[in-house]
Structure formats: C-alpha cells, structure tokens
C-alpha cells in the first residue's frame, strides 16, 4: 500500500485511474447488459450459427451487409440478439417485402429450424436479448396486474382492447390478437419497428408475463356483449348505428308507408 501511495502523484497515475474506471464501468455494463442474455435457453450450437450464417449471406446480407455490419439499406444487426431475429423473421416481417414506413406482417418465409439458425448466427455476433424461456410464456401470470401494465404502457398505441392504432406518417401499432406470447415478449424486449424497448428495468420479466397473460385472457374471453365491431371504440359504433341501425329503421318506414302513397 505504501508503494502505491508513494506513486499517487506519478504523471501516469491519472491515466491509470482513468483506465481502471473505464474498465470497471465497462465491465459492469457488460455484466448488466447480458442479464437478459444469461437466461438464454436456446440450444444453439456452433453448427446452427454456421448454417445461419449461410442463410444470412443468401437472404439478408443484401441490406444488412456481410457479417450483419449494416449498409445504407439496412441497419447493423450486431447486438440485436436472437429475440429480434426470432420476432422479425418469425412473424414474416423480415425479409422485408418492400420499403415503407413500416414492415408488414406476412406469412413467415423461413421455417422454425431456419429461423433458429438465423437467430443463432445473429446472436453469435454480439450479446443481445435472447429468446425468452418458456416459464415466462406460460400465460399463468396475474391478468389484472398485466391489464394495468398494458393500459399504462401499451394502450396508447395498441388500443385498450389491443385492437391496434395509428401512428404518424403511415406507421401503426398492429392489433395483438393472434400474436404468440413469445413474439409479444420479444417485441417488448427488442422494440421492433417504431415500438420502444421495454427493458427489464421498465417492466420486469414477471410484468411481461402478466401482460401476455392479460392479452391471451381477453382474447380467449371473446366479446361478452356480442360482435365487437372491431373493438375500435365509438367510431365503429357510430358507423354501425348510422348505416345498419338507421338503415333498417328506414327500410321499415318505407314498408309502413308504401301501401298508401
């Protein structure tokens, strides 16, 4: 200790301290940011990543660049994690059909094995959110708590009944009915398209599980009051009363007065 304190005014001490500080913060950050990664359960192996690399070079590299380093047409995928790939490719959004404000959902172009291989390849490029473990997707969380989280964090774009909504300049938040729990979870941790990232500090993994439980429960419940008219709120109700309601009434008025005039 004495030797150390004697050298504390050494000209290089400041630099050494700076280096140490950077190493500690960087190291801590690396540990913290791979908390998600630590839960990885996907049985990726080197072979998957290798196969995925081939698929990537053939199908994705045109835009995302060789080695997923990005190009003018597409962002770098280093560090987006397996979850992002599983969501984008698994829902058919990637490979993208055409350029536009937002990629549309479409039938998936790769089968499950290929998707896993692509995910493994992208995950091997740098640490990122991994595919969530099954325990978080069991839909056995607290639906009421999930509902509250959903209304506070998600409903302003996705609509309180998860029927979707508009964003600016042609972008939109899609309806969530029929989306698998895994894809919902991955969307929350990766923030695809225009969606913000809801990290585990924003919404805990248990909270995400509750949200998925809530969404699956309202989907399974159906609409207690009859046809839901798209769950779009008063606009579709107004449209319905003017066209169907008043239309039927007018048909009756014509019938009632037709015999005499």
């Amino acid at each position, binding site marked *: 200790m004495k030797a150390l304190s004697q050298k504390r005014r050494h000209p290089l001490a400041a630099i050494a301290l700076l280096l140490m500080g950077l190493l500690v913060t960087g190291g801590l950050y690396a540990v913290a940011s791979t908390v998600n990664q630590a839960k990885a359960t996907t049985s990726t192996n080197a072979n998957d990543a290798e196969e995925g690399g081939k698929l990537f070079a053939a199908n994705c590299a045109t835009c995302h660049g060789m080695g997923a380093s990005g190009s003018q047409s597409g962002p770098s995928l280093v560090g987006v994690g397996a979850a992002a790939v599983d969501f984008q490719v698994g829902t058919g959004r990637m490979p993208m059909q055409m350029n536009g404000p937002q990629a549309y959902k479409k039938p998936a172009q790769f089968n499950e094995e290929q998707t896993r291989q692509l995910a493994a390849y992208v995950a091997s490029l740098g640490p990122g959110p991994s595919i969530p473990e099954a325990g978080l997707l069991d839909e056995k969380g607290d639906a009421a708590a999930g509902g509250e989280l959903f209304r506070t964090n998600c409903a302003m774009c996705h*609509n309180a009944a998860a029927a979707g909504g508009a964003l600016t300049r042609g972008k939109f938040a899609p309806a969530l009915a029929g989306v698998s729990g895994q894809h919902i979870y991955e969307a929350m941790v990766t923030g695809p398209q225009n969606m913000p990232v809801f990290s585990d500090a924003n919404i805990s993994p248990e909270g995400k599980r509750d949200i998925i439980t809530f969404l699956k429960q309202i989907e399974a419940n159906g609409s207690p009051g009859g046809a839901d008219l798209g769950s779009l709120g008063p606009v579709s109700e107004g449209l319905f009363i003017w066209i169907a309601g008043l239309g039927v*009434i007018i048909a009756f008025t014509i019938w009632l*007065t037709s015999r005499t005039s």
Partner: protein
Amino acid sequence: MSATATPDAPAFVAKTKGGRITNFVDERVGGSGILREFGRKVFPDHWSFMFGEVALYSFVILLLSGTFLTFFFDPSMAETRYAGSYMPLKNVEMSVAYSSSLNISFDVRGGLFMRQVHHWSALLFVASVSVHMLRVFFTGAFRKPREMNWVVGGVLLILSMAAGFTGYSLPDDLLSGNGLRIIDGVIKSIPVIGTYISFFLFGGEFPGTAIIGRLYMLHILLVPALILLMIVMHLFMVVVHKHTQYPGPGRNDGNVVGYPLGPVYAAKAGGFFFIVFGVIALMAGFFTINPIWNYGPYDPSPVSAGTQPDWYIGFVDGALRLMPGIIGDWKVEQIWFGHVFTFNVLLPALVPAGIIFTVLFTYPWIERWITKDTREHHVLDRPRNAPTRTAIGMAGFVWYCVMWAAAGSDLIATHFHVSLNDVTYWLRALFFVGPVIAFVVTKRIALALQRKDREIALHGRETGRIVRLPHGEFIEVHAPLDEYKRYKLVGFESPSPLPAEPNANGVVDSKEKRRAKLSRWFFEDRVAPATPAELAAAHGHGDHEAIESGETQKTLSH
C-alpha cells in the same frame, strides 16, 4: 253531467260492467271528446315523416332502460377494489361507479343487455333527431308558422347531446374519463373564467371526487325533464300547426291530405314503436357497445388509442384534431399580459359548434328576411325546387362531416393504409374547400334535376321505342305523363329575385340593398316550372303526341 242537466232524457246506461266503468270515467274526464278530436287528426303518409317518431320511441326506450340501470348503478367516486366476476380486472383499484357499471354488465341478470339497449337507443335517438332536422330543413318545413317549433327542435338536439354526453361519462372507465378530460381542457381554455368554471364543475382539480355524482343528477333528472318538456311543446305545436305534406294533386296550404290518426294510423304508429324497440333489442343482443371492461378504470395517466366521444360529439373532437398548434411561425397558443390564451383548444372546440348552432337557430328568420315571404307554408318544397337552400344545407352538412371524419382520422389511416398526417392535411383543406364545393355541386345538381323535371313534364317520358317516319327520320317515342305525375313536376313555386324596395319614407336603405343582393344570389339561378301555356304548346297536337314531342325535342334548352 248530461244526466243531471236533462232530467227528462234517460241517462245512457251501458250494458256491460266494463262499459259502465268506462262511461263513468268518460263523463268525468271527457276522454271520448279528446279521442274524437285526435282520432280525426290527419297525418300525411311518407317515410321521411317518421324520423321524429323514431326519436320519440327511442326516448321512451331510453327512459325504460335507464330506469332499470338506476336500480343498480352507484354514482360514487369512492375507491374500491373490484370483486366481481370479470377476471381480467379482479382486485383492481377503481371507483364504485365503475365497479357498479361492471356489475351491471357481468353480475346483474340481463344487465349487459339493458346497458346495451340504453346505449344503442341513445345513439339512435340523436341520429333520428338529426335526420329529422335534416328532413325538416331540406323540405322547408321550418317556414311560417313552424319557425318556433324548429327552434324547439334545435334545443332538443342540444339537450339530446347533453343527455348523451352526461351518460357517456358515468361509468368512470378510461374512455369516459378521457372524454371528461377533454371537456375539462376546453373549459380551462376559456380566458379568465375557464379555470374557475372547471374548479366549480369538478369540485376542485380534475378529476376530483364529485363529478360523477353531479353528472348523474343532470343525466337522470334535469336533462330528461327538459327533454320531456320540449317534446310536449314540440308535439303540441305539431297538433296546432297540423302536419306538413309533400306537394301533390289536391294538396295545398289549406288542407292536409292523408289518413286520420284512428284507427289505422294509430295502429301503425303503435306497431312502429315495437319495430323500433325490436331493432334496438336485436342490436343490443348481438352487437357490443361501449365495452367498458376493455377500457379499465379511469386514471388520468393512460390514454387508449381509438379514444373518441360518441358520434354526436365527434365533430367537436374532429375539429380539435384538425387545429394546428403552430401556423407558420405563429404559435396559436399566446401569452398576453402574463396569461396563457390557449386558442388552439378554444377556437376548434367552440367556434364550429357555435357557427353551426347559430345558423341552425336563425336560418328561418334569415330566409324570411331575404325572401320577404310572410305567408304560411304547409306544402313542402322538394329539395331540388329550392336549389340555394338545398345547397346551403349541403354545405353545412359537408362541413360537419369533414369534422366528423376527422374524429376518426386514426382509423381512416390504419384501415385504408394511408398516412395519418396526410388524412389530417386533406381534411384541413376540405374544412375550408369542402363546403364551397358542396354548395356549387348541389346547386348544379338541383337545377339539373329541375330541368329534367321540366323536360319530362313538357315532353313525357322516354320510352326507348324508336320509330322511323315515312320521310326517313328516326325519332324516339315519348309517352305522356298522367296528370297526377305531371302535377308533381309543375306544381311548385319558383320565386324570382326580389329587387330592393323603398321603405315607408321612400328610401332604399343599405340594409334593403343588402337584402336585394342576397335575394339575387338566392334566386337568380332558377328553372321556372312549365306553365299551362307551355304545356299546351308542347301537347298541342294531342293526336300526334309522340311525333310532336319528337319534333320539339331539339328546342329544349331552357
């Protein structure tokens, strides 16, 4: 009464017990006299005359279903935890009002059905009132002597919107709370007094703990009572004025051609009540309205996508959406003398609605002033025969619809895959241009229809039968109209512009000049109905009707 007044004549004694009871009541109430008078009341038959009836019946259904709901609704804003049977809200903190609304929906037998009956009939009520007013406007039924009844109808429209909005706010779910938040914002944007009014209304800062109870009192007591009062006045005036009728042979301002109320018409109207009830009941049974369980309890922080008021408040919401916050470099929200003036909320919320209702209430007097027409009118105008009025009405209608559409701009964007911004830009442009286009197009269409009517009146209907004449010419045979049909096409007034007239002092004042200008604008484009002389000329050679009309066909360009 008769028994005591004329002791000689034996009093009428009914044969049955029921008859004697009826007679007892009738001698004291005079019901048969009222029935005799009302039973003979004649009503013309036309489908477009029945919207007022639809409104009345929806109101009756509203009273019935609303009474049911009051048995179970608790307008308290006290906090509670939901303990009902809807699992996705189990144990969620909420107000008693919302909890009781959920209980009506899930735990009261028939409660959800009755809630949906109430809400659907509320939408139908305001819709039928609106369509009824459109019918009255476009047919000119608001003219003397019915101007006051038109105003009563306008008050009914406002009251029905008030009834709707207070009811919409009661469940205290997220949707209704967001609606109240907007109302609160609009009130607060009123300069100087806005904040005071808001604090007075909400009993403190929004949302407070008083508003639901207050709105409930307005919704179930004051507003329905006023609506009932206005309906009584409205119907009383209908009886006094008698019903209007469409032009037709034998119909004039001195008579009413139609069926007496009793018995057929009364039976039809009674049956129609059940038809309206049935349509509403079917809608309530098969189509969800206001699924409050989706929205969750009100909390000032979350706002759901797709949050809108019910359709009749939609145009105000749309106007708010269309209003830019910044025009060029000029901020619409201004700070003057250290106070914020939120014009970007105040203007769209109050000005369009103010213009619509001001014009609506004053229009009968405006038209009366321009036309100097002080006669009574009981025969309606066909909309085409009053082109300028019809065009004014359509301009207003389109203006309203632009704002109305703007309230659904987000759904237009998502469902037609267009940019929300573009929808807003287009609607902003249409807000100014739309009424002008509507005016011009409507007027042209009305005039064109009048020309068509005139041509048909003069030359008959085209039969599609082509005949070759001996000298080789081809003509199409026109079949003449029968007199009844022709009357409809020629029996209307077509006023010409009324030039400025000097007043009692022999002076043409500037107000009169303005009136004359407006009169010219109103009536300068006109297609006069075919006169008897013209008709006689067109049908001059009765025996050669077909040939004659073929020959005169080319000269038709009035």
